[in-house]
């Protein structure tokens, strides 16, 4: 059903309409990219403050400590610590990963990769960014309130997040910010879903789409369905806080009538579990494509990968209860959620097999995007497999709310998505900005990220199994946790190292932006549509809408006579051996 509304929009002329309220998907993508990278920096700094407190409790945070916490001699105070981990989670998930993976890559790649001139609804796209911007401002504003920002964890479970536990305005602003962000995400989702369905270039079937687009499309569908669930949750929470309703109050804290605090957990995780996949699906898609591109052979079982990703998306909607085993749901529910959770390993195993199948007998180039993609396979393997321990009820009774959980979801959501995001940035940077990034710095950045990253998150798995629970300001008030000090210090030092190596990325990014080598149209020798046009593309992307004649992963066909080892999607497929 391609061939939707696809006209050339007039090119904007003023600075304002070109860069600020731009309707151009490429500019909006860059806006989201900057937005995401800035929040990534803020969230990362918060992570360092958290880590410092855990490893060296009662010692001033070096350099910045006295500036940020003048009243406590540079030491992070306990209430600020709670705000820090709450904001770290919120910022990383909603304001760093989502804008980079979904906002930036979604906006940039979807129209270019399917041969469209822009999104289906450019104005909605612009509004989506500015709603996200507004939401970010609201969230940051809450940091300077007299009683501080929200401090109930990014999950904001009532009754802690009601007036009983969080009297300041911070939590209310958190709700408002999340709601605004939900509106922005829904707007984006409307656009992505419609664009993929209606604006594919003539000849491009669903399975001719690059897997990146598959991932982004599934993400958009999940977003449209499940973000409103969180929306409803935070509206009710806001009503509880502002109007005095009692949706989530119970027991002694509800003075009249009884709501149900656990209901919020249900609502939160009905959204929250798909959200995990919302974040990881674009990364999976990018990795699936890049593994094929840099192995110079077709993606192994591309159709099965796409269908497995779809299967995971569907399953993700019915497994959320594994986040709530310790609330003691009925045994029947508990068992059902455990069994359903376990079935996710089947599609996961299939696309892991396909990823490795893609590498098998390839001719692998280890350029930086490929290194980061291989990194994703490694860390997601670890993250996915540690999920087994947590999806199992009885081991979860011990591991729930310990650092094992923190390690697990950082491997899956932070490490994989971060590496996938870097892979995407290194890969599309030439197309986005028309210049190449420095490859040596990129490789240093990769190893400088990959090694400390495993130190951090594997260390978290270790202290978690050792019995250290989450969200504690000072673990060493417990005698039994004192033995974990050296591991905690190792984690913190790894975190500082990893943070330091991100500076190399920032330098590389900024330097390449102005001084990088001019990028050719197709620096990676890849056949998808965006590489058929100049880098950076002109305002309307395609002078002539391309006609797609073959799949996105046509590499290494021995019958090719063009002197290239790949085919553009616009070329008729050269028949290979049967």
């Amino acid at each position: 059903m391609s061939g939707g509304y696809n006209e050339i929009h007039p090119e904007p002329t003023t600075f304002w309409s070109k860069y600020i309220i731009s309707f151009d998907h490429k500019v909006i993508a860059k806006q989201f990219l900057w937005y995401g990278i800035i929040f990534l920096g803020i969230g990362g700094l918060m992570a360092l403050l958290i880590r410092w407190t855990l490893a060296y409790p009662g010692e001033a945070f070096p350099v910045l400590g006295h500036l940020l916490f003048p009243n406590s001699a540079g030491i992070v105070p306990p209430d600020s610590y709670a705000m820090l981990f709450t904001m770290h989670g919120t910022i990383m998930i909603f304001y760093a990963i989502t804008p980079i993976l979904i906002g930036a890559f979604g906006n940039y790649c979807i129209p270019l990769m399917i041969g469209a001139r822009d999104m289906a609804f450019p104005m909605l796209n612009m509004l989506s960014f500015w709603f996200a911007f507004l939401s970010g401002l609201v969230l940051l504003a809450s940091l300077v309130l007299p009683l501080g920002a929200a401090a109930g964890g990014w999950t904001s479970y009532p009754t802690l997040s009601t007036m009983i536990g969080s009297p300041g305005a911070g939590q209310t602003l958190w709700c408002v910010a999340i709601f605004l962000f939900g509106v922005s995400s829904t707007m984006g989702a409307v656009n992505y879903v419609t664009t993929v369905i209606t604006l594919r270039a003539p000849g491009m079937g669903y399975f001719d789409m690059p897997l990146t687009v598959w991932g982004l499309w599934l993400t958009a569908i999940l977003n449209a369905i499940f973000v409103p669930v969180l929306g409803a949750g935070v509206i009710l929470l806001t009503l509880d806080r502002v109007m005095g309703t009692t949706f989530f109050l119970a027991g002694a804290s509800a003075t009249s009538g009884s709501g149900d605090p656990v209901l919020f957990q249900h609502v939160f995780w009905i959204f929250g579990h798909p959200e995990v996949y919302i974040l990881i699906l674009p990364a999976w898609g990018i990795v699936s494509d890049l593994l094929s591109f840099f192995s110079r052979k077709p993606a192994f079982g591309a159709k099965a990968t796409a269908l497995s990703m779809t299967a995971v998306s569907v399953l993700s909607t019915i497994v959320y209860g594994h986040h709530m085993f310790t609330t003691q749901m009925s045994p029947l529910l508990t068992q059902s959620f455990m069994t359903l959770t376990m079935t996710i390993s089947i599609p996961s195993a299939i696309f892991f097999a396909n990823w490795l199948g893609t590498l098998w007998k390839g001719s692998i180039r280890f350029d930086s995007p490929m290194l980061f993609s291989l990194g994703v396979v490694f860390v997601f393997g670890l993250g996915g497999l540690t999920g087994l321990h947590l999806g199992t009820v009885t081991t979860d009774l011990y591991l729930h709310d310990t650092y094992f959980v923190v390690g697990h979801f950082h491997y899956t959501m932070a490490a994989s998505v971060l590496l996938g995001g870097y892979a995407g940035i290194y890969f599309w940077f030439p197309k986005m900005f028309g210049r190449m990034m420095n490859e040596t710095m990129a490789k240093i950045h990769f190893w400088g990220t990959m090694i400390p990253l495993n130190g951090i998150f594997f260390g978290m798995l270790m202290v978690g199994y050792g019995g250290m629970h989450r969200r504690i300001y000072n673990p060493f008030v417990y005698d039994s946790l004192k033995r974990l000090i050296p591991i905690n210090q190792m984690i913190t030092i790894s975190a500082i190292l990893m943070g330091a190596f991100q500076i190399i990325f920032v330098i590389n990014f900024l330097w390449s932006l102005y001084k990088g080598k001019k990028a050719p149209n197709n620096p990676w020798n890849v056949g998808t549509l965006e590489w058929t046009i100049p880098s950076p593309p002109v305002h309307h992307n395609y002078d002539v809408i391309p006609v797609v004649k073959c799949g996105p992963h046509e590499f290494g066909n021995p019958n090719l006579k063009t002197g290239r080892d790949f085919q553009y999607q616009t070329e008729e497929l050269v028949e290979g051996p049967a």
Partner: protein
Amino acid sequence: MKRNELQSNLAMTVVLVSAAMLFITLFMGYAVFRSSAATWPPMGTEKVSLWLPFLSTVLIAVSSWYCYQVRLDVARKDFSAARGHLTLTTVLGVAFMLAQSGLWFHLKSTGVFVTSGIFASVMYGFTWIHAVHVVLGLFALGYLHVVLRSPTDAAMQKTINVEKFWHFLGVVWVLMFFGLFVF
């Protein structure tokens, strides 16, 4: 189907799915509250008199009917009739909001305050959230007034989208009427 009708329909479908998920979540919460309460309404609370909610239901149903007429008129290119029906739709929509305000005053006068517990929370909270959507719907109707004053080719598609949203609000209200007030 014309080139951008498909996009428009798809986008509206996604919007309605999103909005429906929001209300489904509310209804799910309501099911939890009701099934976990020993009696409903809880001890010491009386059922709300059906008179005002029933009036609201009639108003929004009739306005949905007129909204449907608007689309038929636009399909016939009879724009003056369409504007007339649209005005009726809007007036009934405003009347619905008045009836809802009446309901809130009535609740207050019978001693059911927002802070009086879970029953009141549901009654006020859910109708407020629906009312906010109705206000958005009224803005959409206003926008359609502007569109129909100097209609273009896109007028039909815009009418269809606004009509869908208005019907959606009606359906949600009817579900609330039966779920919250009747049973």
